[in-house]
């Protein structure tokens, strides 16, 4: 091994003009951002206010920023794929297989790990401590470390476009194809280390959210008084804690196979790829619910607020959430009914999968009946929510179809499956995140988002979704497999062209969202949220200012009811009792989390390229920093004493 491992000049992307253009765009964008920050003199505030922060709201905003950037990258991949498949009848299209295979692998990896996960983690970060009346998460330092680890993973994926290649083994990296004998080179290693580094962050996020919700609730907030978003965040965090270790294990074992010549999943030598499939989906199926449950929570908050009613069947919804959480661990085998398990095994897992449709159906009806006899304001978040309900049930129905093993034998590995899981994750999860984004944006930033552009974005997205994915359902019936770089069936092409047109509509939706951000920022004076309660909200986060002070609440509220804020507004003559003067302790900002993330990035990079000395140094640096953190004698608390507590009370009394 040389000094730079297997890194060399041939690692640059000269193999495909499209890849080269992508890499050039990425490098130019990075350089322009660096130049802009330098020119505007933003380095100091950037470090002081953002990079060193341990404030859960700012970390949440950084998560959202990361999700936005990665959404653009992941969507660019989607456009390239749709274009390729629209063209590639009896031809190679414009993308060589080597590049096309990287693109669909990167698209899946990015959208799951680096778009959806940061998006939901960002929303949970911003909202959950506010909803439970806490000053911050339980472990603010750890929270920042989680964020920077996620960022390090995302940076590795982005870097793979410029240096070397990304994995061509799909986002699931199924062995034995992902083993050295079939895919040598750094591609799969990029996938492994991006997932391992980010997965460590997600596990810690799960622990953090779980402890925060269980330990940091305001007095009086019993579990059954928690807002539904907090409930879904709780179940999601439990799933993260239990599911992510399986992913870490399976990718680490794959790394041992690839790097040190182990034989966990190889063809022959005692390896068995079926173990990987099991381990991966023991994480992978709960992961679906990790993504979708917080979105369910958002829909619950949105539909109650904008119907001006308490949620219909709150208890049902809580139980349905918990049931989904438990059942999500019992269905992983339905991802490989076709592996040859016995009919008994397949049938049991098929039926277990269908049972999940019951609590999910209950949720949809509870949201519908929340609107019944309400007074509904059709705002942008409501648009996303209604669009979700109409579209999501189609995905649910196709999911039940796929859960029938004999049907799965026909639909497995087909674009029908691709259409199904996009039907779950776009209207199911992503629309929810968009709804939450517009719903809580004023809380995080102090001004509302423009409604007109928000609704335009919604119409473009949902139209695009139908045009892009309904043809894939039909193509599945025609027997089209997924991941086809080219094909020779003329009958497929019209539908694939239709799907590409759908992608253009979605592009228009994303463009509307960018315009929406700009227009809202420009009109931030008129869209300003002065009360902290722009939507006539029902839960605690609307009781404090927008954006909240670093300590969230001047006084921690005492909770008397479900939907405490709505209860206070409705209860005539309610006066908040003054308590003892509050001493607020805030954790000290620190650059260490960013440094740990940066070292993890370097460690991952070194492992990918076999630069052993650098890997060892990076690992030792991380250990040293963690040790140093443990020896900090100053507990790092900034104490703030609130003198004028009456201001907060007056705000509540007047509304």
């Amino acid at each position, binding site marked *: 091994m040389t000094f730079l491992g297997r890194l060399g000049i041939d690692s640059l992307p000269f193999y495909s003009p499209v890849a080269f253009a992508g890499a050039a765009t990425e490098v130019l964008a990075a350089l322009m951002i660096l130049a802009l920050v330098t020119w505007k003199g933003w380095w100091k505030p950037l470090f002081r206010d953002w990079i060193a922060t341990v404030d859960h709201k700012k970390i949440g905003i950084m998560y959202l920023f990361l999700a936005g950037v990665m959404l653009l990258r992941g969507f660019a991949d989607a456009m390239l794929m749709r274009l390729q498949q629209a063209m590639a009848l009896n031809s190679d299209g414009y993308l060589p*297989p080597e590049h096309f295979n990287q693109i669909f692998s990167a698209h899946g990896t990015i959208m799951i790990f680096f778009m959806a996960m940061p998006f939901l983690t960002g929303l949970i970060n911003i909202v959950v401590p506010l909803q439970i009346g806490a000053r911050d998460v339980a472990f603010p330092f750890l929270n920042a470390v989680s964020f920077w680890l996620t960022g390090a993973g995302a940076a590795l994926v982005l870097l793979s476009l410029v240096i070397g290649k990304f994995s061509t083994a799909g986002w699931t990296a199924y062995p034995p194809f992902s083993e050295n004998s079939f895919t040598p080179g750094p591609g799969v290693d990029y996938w492994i280390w991006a997932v391992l580094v980010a997965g460590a962050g997600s596990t810690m996020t799960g622990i953090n959210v779980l402890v925060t919700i269980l330990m940091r609730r305001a007095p009086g907030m019993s579990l059954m008084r928690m807002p539904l978003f907090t409930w879904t965040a709780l179940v999601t965090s439990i799933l993260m804690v239990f599911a992510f270790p399986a992913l870490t294990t399976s990718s680490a074992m794959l790394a041992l196979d690839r790097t040190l010549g182990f034989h966990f999943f190889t063809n022959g030598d005692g390896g068995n790829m079926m173990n990987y499939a099991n381990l991966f989906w023991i994480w992978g199926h709960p992961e679906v619910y990790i993504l979708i449950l917080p979105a369910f929570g958002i829909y619950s908050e949105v539909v109650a607020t904008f119907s001006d009613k308490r949620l219909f069947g709150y208890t049902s919804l809580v139980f349905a959430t918990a049931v989904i959480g438990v059942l999500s661990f019992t269905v992983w085998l339905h991802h490989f009914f076709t592996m040859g398990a016995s009919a008994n095994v397949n049938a049991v897992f098929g039926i277990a999968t269908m049972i999940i449709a019951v609590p999910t159906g209950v949720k949809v009806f509870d949201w519908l009946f929340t609107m019944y006899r309400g007074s509904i304001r059709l705002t942008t978040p409501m648009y996303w929510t209604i669009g979700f309900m109409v579209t999501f049930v189609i995905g649910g129905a196709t999911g039940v179809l796929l859960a029938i093993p004999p049907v799965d034998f026909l639909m497995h590995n087909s674009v029908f499956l691709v259409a199904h899981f996009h039907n779950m994750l776009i209207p199911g999860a992503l629309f929810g995140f968009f709804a939450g984004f517009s719903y809580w944006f004023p809380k995080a930033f102090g001004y509302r988002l423009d409604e007109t552009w928000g609704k335009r974005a919604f119409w473009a997205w949902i139209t695009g979704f139908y045009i892009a994915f309904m043809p894939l359902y039909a193509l599945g019936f025609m027997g089209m497999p997924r991941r086809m770089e080219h094909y020779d069936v003329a009958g497929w092409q019209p539908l694939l062209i239709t799907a590409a047109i759908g992608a253009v509509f979605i592009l228009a939706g994303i463009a509307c969202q960018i315009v929406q951000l700009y227009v809202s920022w420009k009109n931030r004076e008129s869209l300003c949220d002065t009360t902290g309660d722009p939507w006539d909200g029902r839960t605690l986060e609307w009781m404090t200012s927008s954006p909240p002070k670093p300590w969230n609440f001047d006084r921690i509220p005492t909770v008397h009811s479900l939907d405490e804020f709505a209860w206070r507004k409705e209860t005539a003559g309610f006066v908040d009792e003054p308590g003892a003067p509050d001493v607020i302790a805030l954790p000290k900002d620190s650059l260490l989390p960013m440094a740990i993330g940066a070292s993890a990035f370097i460690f991952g990079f070194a492992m990918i390229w076999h630069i052993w000395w650098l890997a060892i140094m990076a690992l030792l640096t991380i250990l040293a920093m963690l040790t140093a953190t443990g020896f900090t004698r100053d507990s790092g608390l900034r104490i703030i004493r609130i003198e004028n507590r009456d201001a907060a009370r007056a705000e509540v009394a007047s509304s």
Partner: protein
Amino acid sequence: MKLIIRMMAGVSGPWTAISARHCVPQALSLLLVSLMLAGCSTSNLAILSPASGFATGQRDLIYFAIGLMLIVLIPVWLLAFWFPFRYREREGTRGHHPEWTTLPWVEAVVWTVPAIIVAIIGYTVWLETHRLDPYAPAPSQGTAVQIDAISLDWKWVFLYPDGRGATVNELVLPVGRPIELHLTSDTAMTSLFIPGLAGQIYAMAGMETELNFQPERAGMHIGRNTQYTGGSFPDQQFTVKVVSPEDYRTFLDRLSRNGSSLSEADYYELKMNRHTSPVREYSTYPNELFQSVIDTYCSSNCGRRQTEPGSHAPQGANPEGTAGGKA
């Protein structure tokens, strides 16, 4: 096919009428899908025009489940447009009852109706998963035609019974006899699928999997690997000719008179030449070639006709399961 179109038309009809104001794009796209499905002849939708008892049973399950689920889907669609329209914010508070937050019988209905539907589908799943188990011999009087299939990069090798020849990327089957396809892989994990004829099952190195089905009509199909394996994965497909028993015998005779034999060296060349291949025919192949491919990866504990996962007990034919399963 007609059934599904009628269902979709039935759905989009009332839907567009009620809320034309809010849902034009969705209605349009749903209409578009219906049109697309209607525009395709059923022969394009291979899965909906099956040519074997197994594939028919699998397709009928799709119709059955969709029909049942519409019991839930149609109310959701109607309510999702009716409620926002009926209870939208307007002057006065007509119809606004914020205190209306739970009603036991509604809750009972929303839990039990989906539960009953899932119970019905679940019961059917139990029966049908056993009846349509790819390992279960096709219910038929005839003796099974045992063919071994080996997956290579990026082609398929088929070995006909009793050493009577081998083909590459071409599978010829007699109509009306049960087919027992034994699969293994001499490369990464792949999945053999013949839309319209047989569902898919993985082929894995060092292991043997099995696919049983019975062609009901003569005709041509395209079979392929659906499990992505890089490189020329899109080209890993083969033609399936279902022919009359006489033609099948003629084919085997022609194969055995072909003269060229598949030697171990030939096989090794096929394996190492990582491209797809035109159709090739051989009159003989090495004894135990299939088993030796499995043994390459599995030195112990994988005897002939043992399948992974080992729990797979041989399935007897379901006495009630008749060929060409009824809807």
